[in-house]
């Protein structure tokens, strides 16, 4: 154990202990040292002084913000050692410098700032070699700069400035700005050297461990920065920001972050990365941004204009610097959001790693700390990505936050909202359920869930539950109460449309009407309540009442497109076709690209102005479609997130599109004609919404669907003109997009009928029904053909089914009457004819349900 170590070996050992802050070993080593040579006594004093000072500081750490004051009894010994080392003057130059620096540090710890500066004036810090110096000396120099900065801040500027002597400049003529600049330079140098020291120290440490590999010593602990290095690393940018000098503060942040990280700087880097991201998001804009590899602008709006003279850029250089990230193809951000995102992703990966998972009470504080630091990062990520509309990516990031999220409402809610914004509706509803559990009093959350259930998901039963949560809140829901009734009304209204039994249909319609009336009375200034009340009345064919409410809705919101559309349809139900067309044209002047309005216009035009006008409108629609969707570049818009999404998106290609159904020609709002069809539609709408934000959101869900619908409308106009060839060409276009759509097949049947091919038509209609068994128009035509083929009972069956599906289709009633008549059932036939007549009197040109119903 006490085997004498040779001189150089001993020195290496001492150096290693100093570099690794193993102060407890120093006294023993000093004993060995002094046994060797008498001249080593001074070095021994130096080492003992250092080790006692460092041990003292470790036991009594200086707190940030607190300034040490007064001599401490424990430090008397330190002073004795150091004085002894300095006084005799036998030390080598290097050690002499070290002794002075330690003396200065001691003075600072004792609150003798002037004395400290006096000691620094004896050492020329700038001349101390950084290259080839032992690791501990780097730390010593860094600490010395930091301490000098601290002392300069403490000593009033007016006093004879001791700092000037070493730079050699005349003491006069130095303004406060220069002095501040000196202080900042001290800190910046300290920080730069500290980074270098930390890199070198880690390198030495890992090399050391490899040499003595099997013996895991106490060296395994992390390096600790201590007060002086922490100050050196951070004080410079704190001063920059305090002075309102954002440009230099940001520059300093970037310098620190560009240095290659090591274990000790990780936590600092995480803090600084987050702070820089905050500044980039809160205090900068695209125009005032400069990239990390560019020189900062000389004049920047970011800097406080009232403080002059702070824009001096860095005016020192060091012989050796910390390693920075380098290499080919380094990503360098080019705008503020990019840089903020990069920094936040880095912070996120660190925050995620520090997630405290254990839930035992002793770790409560740790958990709160890790949660807080992570949620700040996630909030900033939300701000950055939200600003750029990247909800898809955001939802993925927030999903990673879930390991913090147990019982944390904010994180759950943000995830739900991001999923909703990213169009991942089904998942959003599941997460919203958890949010409701965590915060049962907030009416917004169930309403958001209803919105998804009514809209893209078409989960009407779930929607009903969520809406009832809001209604059950009663008065507590305040302004949201009316919205709750509106929501449940919409659920009932959609259920009525879906219901296949007439009695259930009527039951739901009655309930819907009640709910809308309640909503309207609770919130008389909400145009939506009045509008949906009007729509529901219209569906129930209470045309005059509906007109009253739609006018009310229009008074509240004059340019609401759906109200205008409903008004036009109501007028057409009253057979005021010209008025209806005028309204549609007026609405189109405000919404020139609304395809729903244009479809109605085509219908009205072929009625009032002849098919040629209608064809012109169809052509116009094609032009609009082209200008709209040609412009947006779907390959750029949005990134499909999961591999699954990708796979679907790739299959989305035009020709491979094998969707059995697209949004029903007759119904603008999602209409689940069968469960299977609705599932497909659901999948489709998720795809459509994952197509992302830059695509226009209005109009039907999918551009290709819109195109197919336009062609089908044109085909219909041509069949009306008895032009089977043209109609067939148009249908072919639609068929290229959706070959198995029941609407396409139905149109083919119509064309076959026009050509007189009854058998062929029958075949098309049967195919159409095999895809969508509840398509009323096909059923009606098939019934008619079966009637012509004199298969009366089958025809009657088909038509009765059609009436079950839609009891307001007057032409079906009429056909049914004819079949019954042909079968000799005159009484039943009469009843059917009367029903048909009555319904026809209130029948709009297109079903009221083409108007979308959504929250």
């Amino acid at each position, binding site marked *: 154990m006490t085997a004498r170590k040779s001189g150089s070996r001993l020195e290496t050992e001492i150096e290693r202990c100093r570099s690794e802050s193993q102060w407890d070993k120093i006294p023993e080593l000093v004993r060995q040292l002094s046994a060797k040579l008498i001249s080593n006594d001074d070095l021994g004093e130096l080492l003992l002084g250092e080790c006692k000072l460092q041990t003292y500081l470790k036991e009594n750490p200086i707190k940030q913000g607190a300034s040490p004051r007064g001599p401490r009894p424990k430090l008397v010994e330190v002073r004795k050692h150091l004085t002894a080392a300095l006084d005799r003057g036998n030390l080598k130059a290097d050690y002499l410098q070290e002794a002075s620096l330690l003396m200065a540090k001691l003075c600072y710890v004792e609150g003798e700032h002037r004395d400290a500066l006096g000691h620094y004036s004896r050492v020329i810090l700038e001349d101390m070699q950084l290259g080839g110096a032992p690791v501990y000396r780097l730390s010593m120099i860094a600490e010395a700069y930091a301490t000098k900065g601290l002392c300069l801040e403490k000593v009033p500027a007016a006093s004879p400035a001791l700092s000037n002597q070493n730079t050699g400049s005349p003491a006069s003529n130095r303004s406060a700005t220069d002095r501040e600049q000196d202080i900042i330079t001290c800190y910046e140098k300290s920080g730069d050297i500290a980074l270098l020291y930390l890199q070198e120290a880690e390198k030495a440490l890992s090399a050391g461990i490899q040499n003595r590999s099997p013996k895991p010593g106490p060296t395994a602990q992390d390096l600790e920065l201590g007060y002086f290095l922490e100050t050196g690393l951070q004080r410079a940018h704190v001063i920059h920001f305090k002075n309102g000098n954002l440009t230099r503060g940001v520059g300093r942040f970037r310098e620190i972050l560009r240095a290659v990280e090591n274990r000790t700087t990780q*936590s600092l880097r995480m803090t600084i990365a987050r702070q820089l991201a905050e500044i980039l998001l809160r205090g900068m804009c695209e*125009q005032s941004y400069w990239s990390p590899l560019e020189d900062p602008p000389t004049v920047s709006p970011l800097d406080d204009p009232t403080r002059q003279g702070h824009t001096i850029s860095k005016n020192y250089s060091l012989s050796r610097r910390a390693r920075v990230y380098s290499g080919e193809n380094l990503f360098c951000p080019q705008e503020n959001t990019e840089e903020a995102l990069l920094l936040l992703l*880095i912070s996120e*990966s660190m925050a995620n790693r*520090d997630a405290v998972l*254990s839930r035992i009470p002793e770790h409560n504080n*740790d958990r709160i700390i890790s949660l807080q630091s992570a949620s700040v990062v996630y909030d900033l990520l939300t*701000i950055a990505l939200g600003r750029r509309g990247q909800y898809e990516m955001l939802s993925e990031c927030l999903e990673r936050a879930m390991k913090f999220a147990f019982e944390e409402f904010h994180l759950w809610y943000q995830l739900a909202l991001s999923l909703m914004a990213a169009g991942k509706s089904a998942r959003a509803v599941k997460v919203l359920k958890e949010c409701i559990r965590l915060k049962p009093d907030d009416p917004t959350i169930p309403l958001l869930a209803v919105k998804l259930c009514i809209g893209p998901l078409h989960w009407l039963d779930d929607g009903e539950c969520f809406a009832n949560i809001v209604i059950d809140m009663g008065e507590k829901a305040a302004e949201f109460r009316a*919205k709750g009734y509106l929501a449940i009304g919409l659920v009932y209204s959609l259920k009525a449309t879906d219901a296949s039994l007439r009695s259930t249909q009527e039951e739901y319609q009655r309930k819907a009407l009640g709910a809308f009336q309640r909503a309207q009375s609770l919130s008389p200034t909400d145009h939506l309540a009045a509008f949906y009340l009007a729509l529901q009345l219209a569906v129930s064919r209470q045309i005059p009442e509906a007109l009253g409410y739609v006018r009310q809705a229009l008074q509240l919101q004059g340019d609401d497109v759906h109200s205008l559309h409903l008004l036009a349809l109501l007028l057409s139900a009253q057979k005021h076709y010209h008025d209806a067309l005028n309204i549609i044209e007026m609405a189109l002047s405000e919404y020139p690209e609304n395809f729903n309005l244009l479809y109605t216009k085509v219908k009205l035009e072929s009625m009032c102005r002849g098919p040629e006008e209608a064809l012109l409108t169809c052509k116009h629609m094609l032009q609009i479609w082209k200008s709209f969707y040609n412009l947006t570049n779907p390959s750029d818009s949005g990134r499909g997130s999961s*591999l699954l999404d990708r796979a679907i998106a790739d299959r989305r290609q035009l020709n491979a599109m094998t969707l059995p159904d697209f949004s029903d020609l007759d119904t603008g709002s999602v209409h689940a004609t069968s469960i299977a069809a609705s599932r497909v539609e659901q999948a489709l709408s998720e795809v459509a919404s994952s197509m992302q934000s830059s695509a226009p959101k209005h109009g039907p869900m999918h551009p290709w669907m819109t195109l197919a619908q336009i062609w089908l409308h044109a085909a219909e106009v041509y069949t009306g003109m008895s032009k089977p060839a043209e109609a067939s060409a148009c249908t072919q276009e639609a068929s290229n997009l959706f070959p198995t759509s029941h609407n396409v097949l139905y149109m083919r049947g119509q064309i076959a009928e026009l050509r007189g091919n009854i058998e062929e038509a029958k075949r098309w209609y049967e195919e159409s029904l095999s895809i969508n068994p509840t398509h009323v128009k096909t059923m009606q035509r098939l019934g008619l053909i079966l009637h012509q083929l004199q298969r009366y009972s089958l025809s009657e069956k088909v038509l009765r089914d059609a009436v079950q599906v839609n009891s307001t289709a007057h032409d079906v009633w009429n056909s049914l009457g004819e079949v019954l008549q042909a079968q000799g059932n005159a009484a039943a036939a009469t009843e059917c004819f009367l029903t048909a007549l009555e319904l026809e009197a209130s029948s709009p040109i297109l079903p009221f349900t083409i108007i979308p119903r959504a929250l």
Partner: protein
Amino acid sequence: MLAMDQGVVEEWLSEYKTLPDNAVSNYAASLKDKGALIPALYKVMRENYSDLLEPVCHQLFEFYRSGEPQLQRFTLQFLPELLWSLLSVSAARDPHTSGCIEALLLGIYNLEIVDKDGQSKILSFTVPSLSKPSVYHEPSAIGSIALTEGALANHGLSRVVYSGPHLQRENFTAQNRFEVLTFLLLCYNAALSYMTATSLQSLCQLSSRVCICGYPRQQLRRYKGISTRLTVTSEFLVQLITGIHYALCSGEVDLGSKALDDVLYRAQLELLPEALLVGNAIKSSLHGAALKSNNKEGARSIQVEITPTSSRISRNAVTSLSIRGHRWKRHESQEASVESDAAVGGVAIPDISVTGTSGERLPNGESMRPRLDGRAPPDCDPVGGASEVSLDLRGQEVRRQKSVRRMVENEGSGTASTGRSQY
């Protein structure tokens, strides 16, 4: 309007017209010295039926068209005020008074949507990825945190369009109004640092008014202008929020927080997820951050403090990182691996389920080891993590890359569904 203000505006109108081309940039720099001008221009815009409105709008457009950045920013600072004029007039259905404002706004829009060569401008940005080295990091040090399904699908950097291309517009319709206004706000937000306090205040007021007019909260704010509800879109609100965020951090604490509350109020009523998302995030990130209200122009409230650099989390707490150590590390060694749990998440932390309702309570970190070791079958090591613990960083990186490749291959060969189920 006082005669003096009128005089200032008229002088401004005539001065620019007589300006020789080479004097434009000097003129632009001198504009901020005309102290009375900007308040006078606001008065023109706020007053109904001012005769000066039309020439003012015309000149502001000339400024914008000059291409001189300072002149363009001069025009932009009035954008919030102009938007409010336009929206309030269109709500009142009085088409005649806002003609020149409409023309000015559409003019700026049509200039901004095209680049120098007249091609449609597409605004895009690069989504950074931790798997590509950058000036701030090295992928090997980050570990495999980024190896989610989505990250693999977008391995590397991808460029994403966030605005554009846009159509030229000749007039405002109900359909295109918010599309145009959203884009204009985007331009405004790109120059936020150059905007004066008055402009930011005006933006906050615009936000509040747009969101509360016609709603019960209007009484609370005692705003007596129009009382019709204005339709808004979620994207428009998100742009407003971006501006409000900047205002909040630049000293407009009162107006800014009111505006943010009002936008969130409206977003709740209209169930707009995007605006709620960003608004909530801003509220929560500013919570606790002491915002300094200032009356002094220029003093920013961005401040930082010296923070302790040692980890604030005690060493014996079970963290994502330590749990990895427990699972993979048999001996106390100097672990330089900073790999996160993401890659092994499914193996290492089954206790914290995503639904979180039945989060099992772990007694403490130490007792985790036997349990986890006992439960995880030895062959379910998807990344080969045990072999990764090494001090040789280069070797570690190589191994990690191998394991990454293995994961990619696994994903590719149809086990994507198992990958999904982890989350």
